[in-house]
């Protein structure tokens, strides 16, 4: 495996990733200096939009089709611990940064509908969350990565605890934090073991992904680290059987937080970014286990979701199934599977979150997203119904939407690896379509049974912006997936090659 690094200074002239990480933090502080609540809300939108703009500028300057690590920044940090400040993105990570910026902006837009008090701390917490997620996607040093990983805890706890919509929000917030702490303890030990393996091989500690790739890990040690890291990430992914925090968090937490939790697949990203390239032998050796858990998750998630009368709970279980599907793709260990998993992660960031936003709009109007409170809604809120359906098409992976390339590629990859697994995955995809259509039919079509439904207000302008943008994106990506595929392709190919060749020491090149 040959790793080529392109420095940010050559590529764009300034440390764009650092700016993307620290700008939201600065903006969070700035927001709290503004007295007027309405001004602060608008300033938050401005900040969110600037961040998104910058993220788009980065993607436009990204060199597609290669496996280079780009916009690289390196600086000394804690040399005694082998820790450096090392940022950079490649095809596997670059698209998640605009996704994070986009979702944050959308969540802020919808805060007018569902956040009626303490909006400044709410928006500040979102900015901190955004900074941490961008940090996660941009970090190439595992220590730095871990710092951002843990930085998510405090704002997440506060968002669920303070602005949650359920009565059990305190419990949900605590449960989320406990699960994450348990997972991150595993990660911490796994990361340290990698660093010490590097020390034993070269004489110096290092937690730098690029340096770690140049040092092979002994097979037994690979297994140990694989279990620590894979299960550490599985908690966040969420992979069956570590998923039970998801329905609780989605039912009790605010919709904005749910969007960030479900939309940004941080746990899956961890598997993709660190576990698979660093531990290629263990990844193939234990692929059966991960695939097995994935298969269970796909069937279990879809079956439970099928009988859920509540939209948020339905989406929680559906997303557990989707995470399982993505794991099937990743551990097919071939180009199609991995490419499909990345596409699926991106699509879910738009489609599942889109439906969650709709659930939020319904909740803000009816105080519930239960089927019993709905029925025949479509007639009275046609705009909402239309976009619910369009985004839903992407959710179930209909061709022509952003959901199709991901699911299709995963199925291809899975068939290549093991046809029985692929058959289960197909079943999951079918169940997924059934559960969405079933809910849509019962909530939006059919006769109106409740008077409250007749008085429902259709999408307000800010909500419409969210719905239209998401609807547009899922269709645009569905019809023109090539730009996205070409961005991810180079890195996916490099990863697949590494999985095939095993952990031969990687060669690091610095492009000029």
């Amino acid at each position: 495996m040959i790793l080529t690094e392109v420095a940010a200074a050559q590529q764009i002239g300034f440390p764009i990733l650092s700016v993307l990480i620290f700008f939201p933090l600065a903006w969070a502080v700035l927001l709290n200096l503004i007295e007027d609540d309405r001004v602060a809300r608008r300033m938050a939108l401005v900040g969110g939009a600037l961040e998104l703009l910058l993220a788009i500028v980065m993607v436009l300057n990204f060199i597609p089709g290669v496996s280079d690590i780009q916009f690289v920044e390196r600086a000394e940090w804690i040399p005694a611990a082998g820790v450096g400040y090392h940022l950079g993105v490649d095809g596997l990570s670059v698209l998640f940064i605009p996704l994070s910026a986009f979702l944050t902006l959308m969540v802020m837009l919808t805060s007018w509908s569902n956040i009626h008090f303490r909006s400044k701390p709410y928006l500040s917490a979102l900015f901190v969350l955004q900074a941490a997620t961008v940090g996660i996607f941009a970090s190439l040093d595992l220590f730095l990565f871990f710092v951002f990983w843990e930085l998510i805890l405090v704002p997440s706890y506060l968002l669920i605890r303070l602005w949650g919509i359920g009565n059990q929000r305190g419990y949900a917030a605590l449960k989320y934090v406990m699960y994450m702490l348990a997972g991150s303890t595993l990660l911490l030990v796994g990361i340290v073991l990698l660093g010490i393996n590097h020390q034993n091989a070269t004489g110096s500690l290092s937690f730098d992904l690029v340096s770690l790739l140049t040092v092979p890990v002994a097979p037994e040690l690979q297994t140990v680290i694989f279990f620590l890291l894979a299960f550490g990430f599985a908690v966040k992914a969420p992979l069956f059987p570590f998923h039970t925090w998801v329905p609780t968090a989605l039912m009790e937490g605010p919709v904005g937080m749910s969007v960030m939790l479900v939309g940004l697949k941080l746990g899956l990203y961890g598997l993709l970014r660190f576990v698979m390239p660093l531990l290629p032998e263990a990844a193939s050796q234990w692929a059966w286990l991960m695939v097995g858990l994935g298969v269970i998750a796909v069937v279990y998630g879809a079956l439970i979701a099928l009988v859920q009368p509540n939209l948020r709970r339905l989406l929680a279980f559906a997303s557990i199934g989707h995470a399982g599907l993505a794991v099937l793709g990743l551990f097919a260990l071939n180009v199609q599977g991995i490419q499909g998993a990345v596409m699926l992660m991106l699509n879910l960031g738009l489609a599942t979150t889109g439906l969650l936003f709709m659930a939020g709009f319904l909740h803000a109007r009816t105080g519930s997203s239960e089927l019993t409170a709905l029925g025949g809604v479509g007639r009275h809120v046609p705009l909402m119904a239309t976009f619910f359906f369009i985004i839903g098409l992407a959710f179930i992976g209909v061709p022509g939407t952003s959901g199709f390339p991901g699911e299709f590629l995963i199925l291809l990859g899975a068939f290549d690896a093991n046809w029985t697994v692929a058959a289960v995955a197909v079943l999951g995809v079918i169940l997924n379509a059934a559960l969405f259509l079933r809910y849509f039919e019962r909530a939006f079509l059919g006769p109106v049974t409740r008077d409250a439904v007749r008085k429902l207000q259709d999408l307000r302008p800010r909500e419409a912006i969210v719905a239209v943008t998401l609807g547009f994106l899922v269709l645009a990506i569905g019809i023109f997936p090539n730009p996205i595929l070409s961005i991810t392709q180079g890195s996916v190919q490099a990863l697949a090659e590494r999985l095939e060749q095993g952990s031969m020491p990687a060669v690091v090149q610095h492009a000029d």
Partner: protein
Amino acid sequence: MQTESVIPFLAMVVALVGAALIVLTRQNPNVREACSLAASVLQFLLVLTMVPAVLGGQTLHFTVLAFLPQVAIAFRVDALGLLFGITASFLWILTTIYSIGYMRQLREHSQTRYYAFFALVLAATVGVAFSANLITLYIFYELLTFLAYPLITHSGSSEALAAGKKYLSYQLGTSFIFLLPAVIVTYTLSGTFDFQPNGVFPATANATVLVVVYGFFLAGSAKAALMPFHAWLPAAMVAPTPVSALLHAVAVVNAGVFLILRVILDVFGVDLLRQLHLDVATTIVVSVTILLAGLNALRLDSLKGVLAYSTISQLAYMILGVVLLSPTGMIGGVLNLLNHAESKILLFFCVGSIYLATRKTKISELAGIGRQMPWTMAAFSIGALSIVGIPPTAGFITKWFLITGSIEADKFAIVFVLAISTLLSAAYYFRILRTAFFGSPLQGDDEAPHLAETSALPQRQVRDSPLIIGPILVCAGLSVILGIFPSFFIDLVQLALP
């Protein structure tokens, strides 16, 4: 490389002069407190002037008084002493500022005595930090015991006197029974009191005797609050809050840990420790201390009591790190002297601020305090995150080094101890924060009506005096800064290690 320098001596003298001036100017509180502040700032600056030389690999020497050829009161500043000196003298400045606000607001009696003994304690602390040999260290260590006594019993209440008695009997009991014999036997075995980086004992020394001596050193440093010699520390919480800060962060417990670190590094030496398997024995003692202290903290309702047990467990972290005997682990252990002091003093300052505003000392009474004192409790949260070890705080750096060190030394059991201790500390700090921020002021109940409604309740925001909130914010800032930029102190610590 040795250099003669009078500065370490001056750093002690400036505190003594400060104490004298405090007594002389007792008629005018403003001048008295200005003297106290000036002494602390001057001491810190003097300590700072030694940093370049020590970072350059030098040690600074000064002999005050030589009784006999081998027995002298002498100073020697190396990296380990300097780290302790910087911690103590810097936190003295903050504690002085805080004391002025705290003692005035409570209209405490005998403030002259308070400031004078505070300065004297700092003189003794610098003496401990910069001592060149065991006898100097022993003398200042004992002086510290006596000088802190009037501060602990400041209120003069029967409870305070009982705590003082407990403190004295633990300190003097252990030091006469264990420490003094250990010092003397060390001298008879080695013929010297001086510290030497690879240990002082000749290869011919009897292993059993050495093990006993080591055990006596460990048991003799009751200030480090290792179990079973820890009970004086929770009892001492009756003292005024700035004195708690002195005990837990500035001077007293650190002096105990410092003594143990000196014994491990410069009396026994790392090789001898490993050879006698004393590292394993110590690891067991500190691990038990860490876990039992964590469990104890869980059941207490007293705010200062929880912090005291948290200190006990954190002090054991320091010793744990060093006896891991792996390079990274030792850095983590020694570094925690500074990181813990920084974060724990913050927590005590916050507790004092709560007491000033509301007279509350129990966790169960804290409901609603988060809304009354948002700045104080935000700072408290940062301190708590640091002690638990969540990034980006100083405590996370410690935890990372300790875990890396344990794995480096192939001691996976320690990783479990640290993980459980992290969960325990997360649990007891979370209990405080949840009550403070989310408990209802009416029922003290967690699942209160939604915030939208509770925030409509009449809430009186308490305004702290700048003398109180200033040090709190500085410490909160430092807890984060030390977490993001730890390298300067890591470099210093590395110089202190073999």
